[in-house]
């Protein structure tokens, strides 16, 4: 091949317009020997495969303080997720009594005593910013603590792996079962396991829709087949994603699909506490504790307990890696082993890069609290708290009524038969109170100007606005028989006749120019 190319290159070289030899990046030079070497190498060893099949991960059951913490957190978080839509909250006769409700149809968001209208979506934006800064804070203190403890993917995979161990037995049994032929017992176990997976998935996807409608009504509708199609399709989609992502894809979601580990890695610094294998203490690892060579060995007995319990199947002893979600189960596993062989706990432990340097040099690490409280985390906390306080303050200061006025422009003014001038306004009155309230409309005008206020089909001194809703009204200002000219500032007011709350809107009365 190479020789052919050279010959052809030479033969075409004469016809080349530039008269320069044609060369290509990566093409062999006029050095046949090196090319031959390269080709023989590539013939002997296949090029590295670009695809690696997934290795099954069957984490071993583990017990210890971190496992207990994860149990507790899982219980709390699942309880919050499942119970929240069923909590009732009395808001009177005119509003839904569900404590947390995203009412898309009526464009309202209810959260206990707070009610958000669509134009107040900045509260949701504020919550998202707080969630973002909260994640920055937790990440700078504890690394990927979100991944390890709170991420729904982690929580549901954890749940599924418990089910798996319950049905198939622990790690080794699961490996054996995987390799076994499809006999009746395996079929039974698989059917049972996947059915439970599907039930959990259904409960997960099913619970989600209750946040968007009255939960008891929707449940009976779902069961009796009366619920809207969108409810069923949402349940179906979320059931499918839970079943697939939690039951089968598992750690691949974290490693290949999720952008968060990549972003989070950029937010760690040398003071962040991460799950660390203290290789300066553990290495060289070795099993033969009683041999003469054991004197030179570190604390790691290479028992692989940390690998066996890892839900993403990584070896923490290789250092920080994208697959490590810092769930800390390896700490529990290793501490258990250390206790058995009579060594101090913490061969694998939460440790910062800065402390790693200190410990390597034989110094005592800085107290954990000093690692946690530092300018960066103080700044994050201050920002987080400031936004939170600002939102709470503005929540308490916001009005329960609102008035917006749009002056009609087509026509700007109307000449009436008696020569007076009339302007028309589209008035929008919002009543966010939980009862229907009567409102009085009034206008303040400069001294010496007389304008009469009327409303279409309504008495402007008693406009009844239904509970928690807005109403549009056409309102007219008419001069008293005189030909008002030019632009006159006008302030329209609404007053809630029950609460005496008032809200103004500044606009204009426009007459002919001359």
């Amino acid at each position: 091949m190479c020789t052919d190319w050279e010959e052809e290159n030479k033969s075409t070289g004469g016809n080349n317009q530039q008269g320069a030899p044609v060369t290509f990046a990566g093409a062999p030079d006029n050095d046949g020997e090196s090319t031959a070497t390269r080709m023989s190498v590539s013939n002997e060893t296949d090029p590295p495969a670009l695809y690696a099949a997934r290795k099954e991960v069957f984490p071993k059951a583990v017990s210890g303080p971190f496992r207990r913490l994860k149990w507790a957190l899982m219980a709390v978080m699942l309880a919050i997720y499942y119970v929240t839509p069923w909590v009732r909250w009395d808001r009177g006769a005119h509003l839904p009594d569900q404590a947390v409700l995203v009412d898309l149809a009526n464009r309202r968001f209810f959260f206990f005593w707070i009610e958000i209208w669509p134009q107040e979506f900045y509260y949701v934006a504020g919550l998202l910013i707080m969630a973002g800064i909260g994640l920055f804070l937790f990440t700078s203190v504890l690394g990927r603590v979100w991944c390890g403890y709170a991420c729904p993917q982690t929580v549901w995979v954890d749940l599924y792996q418990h089910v798996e161990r319950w049905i198939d037995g622990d790690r080794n049994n699961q490996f054996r079962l995987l390799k076994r032929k499809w006999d009746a017992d395996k079929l039974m176990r698989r059917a049972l396991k996947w059915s439970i997976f599907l039930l959990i998935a259904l409960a997960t996807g099913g619970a989600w829709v209750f946040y968007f409608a009255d939960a008891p009504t929707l449940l009976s509708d779902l069961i009796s087949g009366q619920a809207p199609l969108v409810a069923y399709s949402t349940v179906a989609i979320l059931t499918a994603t839970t079943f697939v992502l939690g039951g089968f894809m598992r750690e691949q979601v974290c490693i290949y699909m999720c952008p968060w580990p990549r972003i989070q890695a950029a937010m760690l610094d040398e003071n962040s506490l991460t799950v660390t294998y203290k290789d300066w203490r553990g290495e060289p690892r070795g099993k033969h504790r009683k041999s003469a060579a054991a004197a030179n060995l570190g604390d790691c007995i290479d028992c692989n307990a940390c690998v066996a319990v890892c839900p993403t199947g990584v070896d923490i002893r290789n250092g920080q890696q994208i697959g490590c979600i810092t769930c800390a189960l390896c700490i529990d596993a290793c501490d258990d082993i250390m206790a058995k062989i009579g060594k101090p706990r913490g061969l694998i432990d939460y440790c910062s890069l800065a402390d790693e340097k200190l410990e390597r040099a034989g110094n005592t690490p800085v107290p954990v609290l000093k690692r946690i409280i530092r300018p960066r985390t103080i700044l994050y906390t201050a920002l987080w708290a400031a936004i939170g306080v600002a939102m709470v303050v503005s929540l308490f200061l916001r009005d329960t009524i609102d008035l917006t006025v749009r002056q009609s422009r087509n026509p700007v003014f109307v000449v009436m038969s008696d020569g007076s001038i009339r302007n028309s306004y589209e008035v929008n009155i919002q009543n966010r109170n939980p009862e229907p309230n009567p409102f009085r409309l009034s206008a303040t005008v400069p001294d010496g100007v007389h304008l009469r206020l009327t409303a279409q089909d309504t008495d402007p001194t008693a406009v009844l606005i239904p509970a928690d809703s807005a109403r549009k009204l056409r309102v007219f200002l008419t001069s008293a028989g005189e030909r008002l000219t030019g632009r006159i500032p006008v302030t329209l007011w609404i007053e809630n006749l029950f609460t005496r709350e008032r809200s103004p809107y500044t606009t204009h009365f426009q007459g002919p120019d001359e």
Partner: protein
Amino acid sequence: MSDPEKDEATGTETTGHEWDGIKELDTPLPRWWLWTFYATIIWGVLYTIAYPAWPMISTATTGVLGYSSRGELAQTIANHEAALTGVNTQLANASFDDIASNPDLNQYAQAGGASVFRTYCSQCHGAGAAGLPGYPNLVDDDWLWGGTRDDIAMTIRHGIRWDDDEDTRFSQMPAFGDDGVLTSEEIEAVASHVRAFSGLSQDNAEGAQIYADNCASCHGESGEGDREQGAPNLADAIWLYGGDQASVVSTITHARHGVMPAWGNRLSDAQIKQLAMYVHGLGGGE
């Protein structure tokens, strides 16, 4: 050019073409891709059988499912109208007072009326209903034939000077100049008298006499007009064809016979009710 050969590194044949020493591998398509490709061919064949597809000389194959996008649109419109049948029947049977006192029905009527107005009325009366010279302003409180909701509905239903409708209404002002009833000097005089009603010019005795003889029977002794006959009020501040001397003279000389179509056979009862509610609500309604 050379014959296809087997590439040693991959075990795949080349295409046999060679460009400046670069040979292209003839790697087979992935199987999933190939099967997807075959599936799309089968899909395409089935689709052209089921749906309108192949162009013929003057039409196209209709497909065995009988689908057409135009038919789908008609179905969508029919479904929409069927869904509104209840409220439209309610609207058609309700009196105007009932509609006005029912906020939900009124809101529906206003919104629907605005839509009908934009479609059928705004061409003459303007998008904001402020009218144009010759096309009445519907926002003010001056009405040729009455400004109650029933009056407005009546006008919409039967039109004005619309010969095709038996119940349409006429007001026939003579063309005093064109018909030779008055001379141009007399017309100038009576125009001044008419404009004097609203203080636009000096009154004069000659004009007053001509007015009393020729105009007062319809327009009233002091120009207050008569809605029964559709005779405009001449004493107010509103002039349909302009209130300057030349415009008034032109009106008296040639007469104006504005025409509005009857909508009774083009709009449904519900639509006419909506329209009357909407126009009445623009501010001038009585």
